[in-house]
């Protein structure tokens, strides 16, 4: 660690801290969880059926947005929306992507927790992330 003196305390310069962040990201990019996520995300983006199913679900959801917010869907509308969602998320390529994302989230949460516990600040909350991301 290349440091400078500051009132008898060794301080890590900003560029050193940023390099540590860069190294951290590089190590994360080499994990099986990240590699699988990248691979499945690419497969998902390239899969025409998955993209069409996603589009169909999102379009229907958008068209019913007001009723959804008011919790006022009738049975037919609810069934249609649920069917489109099921058609989308049960595609193997989508399921693999969802599973890989969940694995990556678990890893990132463990890393975030380790950072938060050591530095005394909630990492995600400090970075401005709310419950809605």
């Amino acid at each position, binding site marked *: 660690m290349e440091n400078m003196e500051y009132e008898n305390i060794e301080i890590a310069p900003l560029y050193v801290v940023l390099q540590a962040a860069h190294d951290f*990201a590089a190590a994360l*990019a080499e994990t099986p969880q990240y590699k699988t996520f990248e691979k499945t995300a690419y497969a998902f983006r390239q899969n025409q059926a998955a993209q069409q199913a996603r589009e169909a679900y999102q379009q229907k959801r958008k068209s019913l947005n007001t009723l959804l917010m008011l919790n006022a869907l009738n049975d037919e509308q609810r069934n249609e929306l649920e069917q489109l969602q099921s058609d989308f998320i049960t595609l193997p390529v989508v399921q693999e992507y969802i599973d890989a994302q969940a694995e990556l989230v678990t890893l990132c949460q463990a890393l975030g927790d380790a950072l938060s516990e050591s*530095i005394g600040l909630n990492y995600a909350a400090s*970075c401005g992330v709310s419950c809605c991301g």
Partner: protein
Amino acid sequence: MQTVLTTSMQEATDALIGNLLASEAFIRYQQALASLNQDVEAHTLLEQLSLAQANLRKKQADNDVTQAEIKALHMLQDQVQQNTAILAYSQTQQEAVSLLREINSEISQLLGINFASLANHATC
């Protein structure tokens, strides 16, 4: 279930933590936190403010707040904002948070994902 980290991931995490804690922003933050913890007046003020805010919220719900109570709360808020230990703690925490955001930006740019979003436990 505890997530098992690869050796390189563990080393990189430890190095990032070590460098963050050795950064000027975090050293200043830790010093301000230690000073705040030793400052009896600051603690008393924060406790008084917390109590006054809770009482006022309760009275607001009952529509029973007086101008004198609002004025007393504002005076307490002014005292808190002028307390050097609290002020230093607040300012240094903001600096530490700014550094964390810069760090997260660096990590996220390299990965193509918002690392903090994925690290977040909270759900709506």
